[in-house]
């Protein structure tokens, strides 16, 4: 294909500007994490005066980062698994059945995107406190409360994306499984799910990222015992000295697993989006 110079110039310009815009904060994060403390307390420099890995060692003791990390991993994993299971059943119903209330359900579930988090934050907190008083099940200050809260955050988008994905899988596959003696759940588990693997992976990444990055509810529903990274990372700046090099090192460490996972699986994500409502 022949391309005019205008198109080429436009492409190079767009890519250059966006690449710089995207990469500079990442570059600053990486280089600053390897700077000695005096570098980040004085005027900014684009390169460390000496490269040191001390921030990556010290960051674990300035705040109890390891325990926040473990809490985040547990909360995000549990919320992802539960939300995935729930979304699979719901999307299968949306994709394969016509039933009364179907459109009400899909409208309600999408409209939850509209709810301002601050509106249901406090009532939810009070409900958890009351449940604790009534039954003894502790939801505030434990992981359970955060897990069930987070799983509902990713549900709407997951159901929407998975239902679209299931729609793309021919109904004949389920029918064939039923002829072979599977029930609807058997057909779902044995035939539809294996065929929907890319979509499932995409939804799982999305749920995990949602839980891993949530700040508002984490700031209210966590106590010292179950603090997650979203809140924990901010504790570096409440120390008497602001250890920017350690903050950058910690940000880098908590980002790497999720960024790598996302980038490796981005094809699944795009495929999931294409199959979902994006048609």
């Amino acid at each position, binding site marked *: 294909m022949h391309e005019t110079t*205008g198109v080429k110039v436009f492409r190079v310009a767009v890519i250059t500007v966006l690449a710089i815009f995207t990469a500079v904060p990442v570059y600053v994060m990486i280089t600053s994490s390897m700077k000695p403390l005096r570098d980040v307390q004085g005027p900014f420099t684009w390169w460390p005066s000496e490269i040191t890995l001390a921030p990556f060692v010290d960051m674990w003791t300035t705040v109890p980062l390891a325990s926040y990390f473990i809490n985040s991993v547990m909360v995000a994993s549990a919320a992802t698994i539960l939300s995935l299971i729930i979304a699979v059943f719901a999307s299968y119903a949306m994709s394969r059945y016509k039933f009364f209330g179907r459109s009400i359900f899909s409208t*309600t579930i999408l409209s939850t995107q509209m709810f301002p988090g601050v*509106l249901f934050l406090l009532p939810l907190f009070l409900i958890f406190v009351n449940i604790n008083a009534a039954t003894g099940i502790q939801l505030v200050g434990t992981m359970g409360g955060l897990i069930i809260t987070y799983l509902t955050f990713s549900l709407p988008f997951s159901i929407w994306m998975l239902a679209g994905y299931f729609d793309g899988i021919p109904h004949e596959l389920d029918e064939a499984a039923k002829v072979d003696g599977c029930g609807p759940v058997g057909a779902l588990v044995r035939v539809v799910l294996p065929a929907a693997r890319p979509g499932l992976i995409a939804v799982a990444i999305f749920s995990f990222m949602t839980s891993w990055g949530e700040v508002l509810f984490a700031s209210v529903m966590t106590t010292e015992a179950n603090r997650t990274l979203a809140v924990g990372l*901010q504790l570096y700046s409440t120390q008497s000295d602001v250890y920017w090099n350690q903050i950058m090192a910690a940000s880098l460490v908590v*980002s790497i697993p999720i960024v790598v996972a996302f980038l490796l699986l981005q094809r699944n994500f795009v495929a999931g989006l294409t199959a979902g409502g994006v048609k």
Partner: protein
Amino acid sequence: MSVTTVEPPAQKPTVRPQRKNRRPKSSGWWMPYALLAPAVMFVLAIQVLPMVIGICMSFIKLTKAFIANWGSAPAAGLANYSITVDFNSAVGKSLLSSFFVTCGFTVLVVGLSWMLGMAAAVVLQKQFWGRGFIRTLFLIPYALPVYAGIIAWKFMFQKDTGAINHFLFDNLHVGGEKPFWLIGDSSFVAMLIVAIWRLWPFAFLMLMAGLQSIPSEVYEASAVDGAKPWRQWRSITLPMLKPVNVVLILVMFLWTFNDFNTPYVLFGNSQPPAGDLIAFHIYNASFLTWNFGLGAAMSVLLLLFLLLVTGIYLIVVNRRSRRA
């Protein structure tokens, strides 16, 4: 599958499976409801029920004194609302200014993010050397945990130790005083840049997925007819991406208008009026003064506003597509 011969086969397959699914032999009518039950239960318990309680809370005088025993808080009628919308009082005035800041912020963030995402998606539509790498790079801000990205920017926006002022004043030698980016009026610009940095890769991702469904033959055919790239974008890309754009812009609007993370992580406990987004404002109004009734009233007004805008948006979009 056997096809009955009387009716045209083109219609048959679309009608038949639905019929069958309505009453599957192996299961009852309750099957879809059973499948949906867990999702409905959790969404009701964690989102809908608390929201209804939140709406009730906006009608009671839920202040510090009653927070431990909130059932006994006295009814306030519409008092919380009348304080909120009394724009001569301090509470009403700051809420109104926060609302305008949020409106300006949302329009700029959604508009610019969409433009950047669209430019990047179009530019990366064709295969060229290094495309995969560029695409991966562009998606990093979206993949980073929210707070990690914002904290990096917070460091860059520091007055004396940050990269932005260093670049402007020491590298480019712009004259004058180094500004504070996170205090005062500049905080709006800082917040805007961070929010766009976070959001545009999402627009890029969605538009890229949407572009994949446009067959390349359409472009080739139009090129044969002499269409220039700009014309192709306007007459092919834009109309064919419309279903994506309808959802994308709505979702970006709702997320940005409710954005709490950006000001919360960027500004912490200092709340510059120019960076006082409405979700952040309500959070502070509720949790700093412990007047939750008032905070709930503000949230309900916010919800009503979002419902109204969403409703109008969907009506306008649907009407346009019907006319077209």
